[in-house]
């Protein structure tokens, strides 16, 4: 079996190219900021960034000028307010004009699901009576072929690259995840190339002892990266909490273009890698984000010989 373990620098250098479409997914949880920062450090250009909730990571990446287009369904700083850098790009073309393609959440979920299963479209009960189909002509209302009236459909979404953060994987990329599963499975199967970033690499036996928890098989994974705290200031269930203070602080920083760039210079371009970012944050900051314990009861799959 292939050992797919590489450094994050190697993974981004090998699998993310200028002009490609990139989905760093994760709904509030598991957002791989480490990968986003490395893409900025490697100065990628003209990317199509795809995420249901662009969140702070795409706010930062769009401010840094890596993107030409954004595909999304909720453009906010969750629980806080607006994404000011994305809004500057949309409203004022700063630092560059940004093309947008907008859906609802279920529309994006359906697009990934159709992309993953290689279907021509995904039907859903949404969009009727909304102005969204008028704003985005890829959302269509069609007659059901079975005579049940109108149904909305969205096209498949197949990103060039998906970057998935998770708790653990083995060296082949069999990946286990618990907590908010979001669209991590669908986006991985939909993408042409998959980079998995985990908190821990575990032995294959650990994965095989709990196969129901394996969301993504190594079969579709190109690279496995071990990057503890790689999702900070997002979170990983059971490993660390969301750094809500930073989400609140970013609201102030990102309102001002100069402050945004000063932050990027210090925390992205001013550090060599994630390890240096974590040293800069300091052990106390990380310690504060550690949750208490809440283990599940073990399950017994049984031995059948």
């Amino acid at each position, binding site marked *: 079996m292939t050992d797919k373990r590489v450094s994050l620098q190697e993974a981004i250098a090998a699998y993310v190219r200028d002009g490609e479409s990139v989905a760093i997914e994760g*709904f*509030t*949880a598991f957002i791989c900021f480490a990968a986003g920062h490395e893409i900025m450090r490697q100065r990628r250009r003209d990317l199509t960034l795809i995420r249901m*909730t662009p969140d702070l990571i795409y706010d930062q990446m769009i401010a840094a000028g890596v993107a030409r287009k954004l595909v*999304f*369904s*909720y*453009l*906010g700083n*969750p*629980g*806080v307010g*607006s994404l000011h850098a*994305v*809004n500057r790009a*949309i*409203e004022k073309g700063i630092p560059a004009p940004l093309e947008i393609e*907008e*859906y*609802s*959440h*279920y*529309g994006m*979920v*359906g697009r990934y*699901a159709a992309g993953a299963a290689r279907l021509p479209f995904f039907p*859903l*009960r*949404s*969009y*009727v*009576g*909304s*102005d*969204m189909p008028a*704003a985005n002509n890829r959302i269509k209302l069609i007659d059901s072929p079975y005579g049940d*009236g*109108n149904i909305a459909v969205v096209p498949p979404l197949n990103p060039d690259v998906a970057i998935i953060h998770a708790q653990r994987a083995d060296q082949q990329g069999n990946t286990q995840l*618990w*907590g*908010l*599963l*979001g*669209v991590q*499975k*669908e986006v991985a199967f939909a993408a042409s190339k998959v980079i998995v970033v985990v908190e821990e690499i575990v032995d294959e036996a650990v994965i095989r002892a709990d196969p129901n928890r394996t969301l993504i098989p190594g079969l579709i994974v190109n690279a496995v990266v071990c990057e503890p705290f790689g999702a900070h200031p997002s*979170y990983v*269930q059971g490993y660390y*909490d*969301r750094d*809500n203070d930073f*989400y609140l602080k970013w609201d102030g920083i990102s309102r001002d273009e100069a402050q945004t760039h000063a932050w990027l210079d210090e925390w992205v371009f001013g550090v060599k890698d994630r390890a240096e970012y974590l040293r800069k944050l300091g052990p106390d900051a990380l310690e504060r984000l550690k*949750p208490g314990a*809440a283990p599940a009861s073990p399950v017994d799959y049984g031995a059948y010989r």
Partner: protein
Amino acid sequence: MTEHQGEASYTPNEMMIIAAARALAGTRTVFVGVGQPNVACNLARRSVAPDLELIYESGVYGAQPQRQPLSIGDPTLISGAASVMPMADLFGLYLQRGLVEVALLGGAQIDRFGNLNTSVIGNYDAPRTRLPGSGGACEIAINAQRVFIIMGLKRRSFVERLDFVTSPGHLTGGNARQEFGMPGGGPQLVITDKALFDFDNAEREMQLVSLYPGVTLEAVRAEMGWQVRQAAALTESQPPTNEELRLLRG
């Protein structure tokens, strides 16, 4: 905002959240949005609706948060929940299946038929202000059995014409929802910081049903961009009880 002086003092915002929690009495399943709906649902579960199951679009059914979640993806919603699932299952098997009794939604703009705008102020292609967009609101508005809307009563929000329809309410009124084949019943209540409105008329048009203590009809009309209808029997809402305030502030 000035504090209301009564038996216990409270803010108009607290009254709004308490009114929303009361409206959930007896409800079994509620789809919870970000911000104030979150607070209202958690209050309802601790008061008038102990069997209330909180559903979050992040993929959580039956959350029992141990702290006030900042976002709808907070890890406290996962630990101790009845079920946590892929978002495809949440939207397909719970929402579209019809298992959501009440959904709480908000918006930047609302019109007289409860249609909501959370997308843009100004023109879509050259917006004056870009707003977050739909999230799950569009499909929630279409599929939930009933929709309650929570919004501060402001003239810039309660408008004659939306800049953009993100989530459909009663569309152009009357039977429009049924004609479009929408499974859910649409908006039933609008809960504001000054008064309550419902849609209990043939036109399915927003009508004032209850004023909060100390709020005048003129104060309500001044914050609305159209001549709002009034229910035949206009009531005054009960002020918050000490217990409600204690639970809310707890």
